[in-house]
């Protein structure tokens, strides 16, 4: 079982490392032996062959733009892995890279990987931060977490969740990009802790792709954290 952790020391703002650790634990609970392969900005090659899960977290905007340029060199392998249905999670502003382009506050344009149709445009007047509740338009499932961004997407046709509550300054109406088993989500930090359903979804998909039977495990602290946060966010005035 191989987890590819992209840019762990370059794109790891506020506890993003938690996602890999939580997933690793859950995969071990399924009986897998888990290897975590870390690839970063100074590596000359990123290989997606034989990878079972890919994770990338958020970072300083300047880091993200450099990571985008770096990852672009390996776009072919990444796109093939997406087409093959490899589960992937891009959190925070790392999923900006998957769109057409990113324009930072100083007007610089960085080309994205073009997997999705959106482009991100950023500013420096105000940081977009806040607690949000997302609702999956298809399943009705609710996700909770925190957004910390400088920009919004130009176009939300590829986004599958409605932003149903914001406590803070996040001017987003939709979020979560999905292609096959890839999820891009603006929430940052340990998304899989407060959203055990997403963790479960990934573990199930990984098991299925491995031909292994998925064992239902219980994670009461994670369940309670989700329930308490959802309740608090629902009750708190925006």
């Amino acid at each position, binding site marked *: 079982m191989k987890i590819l952790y992209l840019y762990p*020391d*370059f794109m*790891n*703002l*506020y*506890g*993003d*490392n*938690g996602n890999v*650790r*939580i997933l690793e*634990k859950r995969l071990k609970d399924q009986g897998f032996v888990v290897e975590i392969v870390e690839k970063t*900005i*100074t590596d000359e090659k990123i290989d997606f062959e034989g990878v079972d899960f890919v994770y990338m977290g958020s970072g*300083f*905007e*300047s*880091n993200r733009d*450099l990571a985008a340029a770096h990852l672009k060199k390996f776009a072919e392998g990444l796109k093939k892995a997406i087409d093959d249905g490899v589960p992937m999670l891009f959190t925070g502003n790392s999923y900006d890279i998957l769109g057409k382009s990113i324009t930072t506050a100083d007007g610089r344009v960085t080309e994205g990987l073009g997997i999705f149709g959106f482009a991100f445009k950023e500013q*420096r007047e105000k*940081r977009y*931060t*806040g*607690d949000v509740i997302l609702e999956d338009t298809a399943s009705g499932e609710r996700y*909770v*977490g*925190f957004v*910390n961004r*400088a920009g919004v997407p130009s176009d939300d046709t590829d986004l599958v969740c409605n932003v149903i509550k914001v*406590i*803070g300054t996040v001017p987003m109406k939709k979020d979560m990009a999905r292609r096959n088993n890839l999820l891009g989500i603006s929430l*940052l*930090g*340990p998304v899989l*802790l*407060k959203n055990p359903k997403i963790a479960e979804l990934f573990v199930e998909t990984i098991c299925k792709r491995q031909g292994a039977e998925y064992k239902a495990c219980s*994670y*009461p*602290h*994670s369940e*309670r*954290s989700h329930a*308490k*946060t959802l309740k*608090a*966010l629902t009750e*708190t005035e925006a």
Partner: protein
Amino acid sequence: MKRVRVFTAILICKIVRSLAKLLGRGSSIPGKYALKVCPDILSYLQLPELSIAVSGSNGKTSSVEMIAHILKSNGLKVAYNKEGSNQIEGVVTFLIGASTMSGKVKSDVVLLEADERYSRHIFKYFHPKYFMVNNLYRDQMTRNGHPEWIRDIISEAIYDDMTLILNADDPLVASYGKDREGTIYYGADILDSDTITHEGIYDDGKYCPVCKKPMHYQYYHFNHIGKYKCTSCGFERHKTEHALTKTGVKEGNAFITIDDSYDIPVFFTGIYHAYNILAAFTASVALGIEPEKVTESLAGYVLKSGRISDFTLGKTEGRLLLSKHENSVSYDRSIDVVVNDPRKKSVMFIVDAISRKYYTSDSSWLWDINFEKLNEAELDNVILVGQYCDDLAVRFELAGIDQSKVKVFETVQEAADYCKDNADSFLYVITCFSDKEKILSIVTRRELA
């Protein structure tokens, strides 16, 4: 017309301030009214020749308090925002409060605690002679975004006519001084507690803030604070004007030494505290006070930070180490204290309300704290408490903390009941301003510093 507006703004501000004082309220409301009448009122105030602003993530208030103390005890009249109201309304309130009706500030020095985000708005109207930045850490993401965002926001407040005073050991801060002559640097020389390798969950010094290529550290004081050099563009720790050269204990009394010659007695030698003293020392010398006089003033100064409180809980003895939620560096320093204490001990973490000032349920910062370090200590119990006890529980499980020692409680009362009357195990409580009363209202306390 303009003069009338300025006069009216000053008058209103002074009247509202007097009324607020009568009611026993210190607030920034007077400044708010003044700004309504005259939005650029700050550009009409006449500042004394000496002025200094202090900004950064941690230690602003402590440094400002110390600088004020040093200046005052050396006979200078100081105007400063002691209520910590560091946003534009607060700054207007305290400056007008210290000025004549014509807007002349009646003090020898203006000393300003400057909010990281609001400095760019405040310094549009006036420029302090000195601008000191202490550090830029991951802190209050809800307000601040991230350290590089704040670095860029503060850079909009820096003008050519200011002299910068910078912490040389923090690369992000020191990057302000690049190609800027006359910048004053302070920092710590190599200390006994330094490490050769980086300690912590994340390393914000791994890549150069100037060119983003890998940096090499000769040593670390803590987190990304240390002696660094970029392997590519050559950006490196600048030599310092004033340096912390030693921290230690002599005949039972803790002290720090600055520039190998100035010994300052301290209540505790925590490096955090030492940096704040060094910052205050550097600022005071820049403002013209002799180093010997600065040392003398600091010797008699007891920092009323409230950062440490000793208490008893029945037969249990304990100590509260105040940290800042949403600020992993401050937690890491508190964890160091626990790990370095050889006594038999337990530790309690309370995360109940993340902030006093705004609502957030974000607990991602828990994953930036080096709780793994607790594995180096012999602990009796690890007690996780509050609204976010479940988030803590997952974090502690993945930190490899012996699960048989971990106890999880929703409320501080339940946790306190559990810890009561245990004379065998010293109890450390680590939490934030926003949650401290929840434990202090239960225990019997003794304020130390």
